């Protein structure tokens, strides 16, 4: 168990180094609207994509601990930035109704079921940066 914990700590630390090395977008201040102290993991089913500037939004059915399903919206980088880093519209469309993992942060206004996505993984397991990473 202790070995597992050290392994997990190593993994987490390595992860942090990897994320810190990834460049952030110079778009605007994340902190103005999103709370970097309220970031969490989400797992759910991708249902819909709204692919427009300045930010696309995608919608995911997320199941909570009690099994209740809630539809969440996630804000991402601009379409231009996403296209250039390899996560284009078609990648999202190909994953509609499939499982997605997201690391994202909640809205500062307390808006229900709304978050800014930082990283995500579709079924192919590829880690994709789709927004500013805060933690």
């Amino acid at each position, binding site marked *: 168990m202790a070995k597992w914990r050290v392994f997990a700590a190593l993994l987490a630390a390595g992860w942090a180094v990897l994320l810190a090395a990834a460049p952030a977008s110079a778009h605007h201040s994340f902190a103005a609207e999103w709370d970097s102290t309220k970031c969490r993991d989400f797992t759910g089913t991708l249902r819909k994509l709204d692919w427009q500037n300045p*930010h696309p939004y995608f919608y995911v059915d997320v199941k909570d601990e009690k099994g209740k399903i809630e539809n969440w919206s996630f804000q991402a980088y601009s379409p*231009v930035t*996403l296209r250039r880093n390899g996560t284009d519209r078609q990648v999202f469309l190909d994953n509609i109704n499939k499982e997605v993992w997201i690391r994202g942060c909640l809205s500062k206004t307390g808006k229900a079921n709304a978050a800014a996505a930082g990283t995500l993984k579709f079924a192919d397991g590829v880690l994709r940066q789709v927004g500013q990473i805060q933690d």
Partner: protein
Amino acid sequence: MRTVIVAGAASLCAAIASIAALSAQTTAPTNQKPKYEITVMPPGGPPPRLSDGHVDFSGHWFPNGAGQGVSGRYGVDPEAIRQFDPKATPEERPAFQQWALEKIKSMTPTELELSKSSVNCMPRGVPAIWLQNPYTTYIMHKPGVMAQMYEVLNNWRLIHLDGRPLPKDPEPFFHGNSAARWEGDTLVVDSIGFDERTYIQPNGWFHSEQLHVTERYTRPSMNYMIVQITVDDPKVLQKPWKSAPRRWTLGNGEIYEFYCTNNKELEELEKLRQQELKQK
């Protein structure tokens, strides 16, 4: 509880030490740069020239040293991300007049955010398009005129190179009113008459009707365009401000449509601004 915290801290230290040890074993000597997938572009030979002999600035220009998008990508050499090296060419801070500094400082964080073109979807304008723009610019240049097409917000601007003077009574435009001249291989563009809603940089740096912007364009080689900006605005600044020479690199990728039609942030930011005003 204290024992748990101490144990946790010790575990963290052990993990960091393990990573350091592992890193020391597996990485190359420190004087060797890691291998990056996206690196700084080579100069690419001499710049092209127009039929009139002047340097041709045509091309799809990226605001970095990579000639491609760098945001949200892994394996990018940090040297390729920035537009200038602050150690080699430090950029001075603007010297604001006291009243202007007080006005900027009085902005709440949300007011500051709402003032940004990237949030409110108004044109960045000149010179911000060269100073606060992570998107690309496509330039079409021929003798007599240069067309600058900015990817962000689908804005564009024409700079006439036929020697016409600045207007005496300019209309306030987001991109100002320009007159251009050549100084050797440097294209110098003077502009006056700006819309008061533009900001020089996304830090609250507003301008007055006295704003006079000078852009200096050079293309030292095929793959590089350098843009240096001087901002003269005696009402707001104690002395003119000069930017570092900022590099843009030639890329082959597409320029995309960017009409800002899905701005859901304004509503949320306005709620936060109302909260801030109540606290004032």
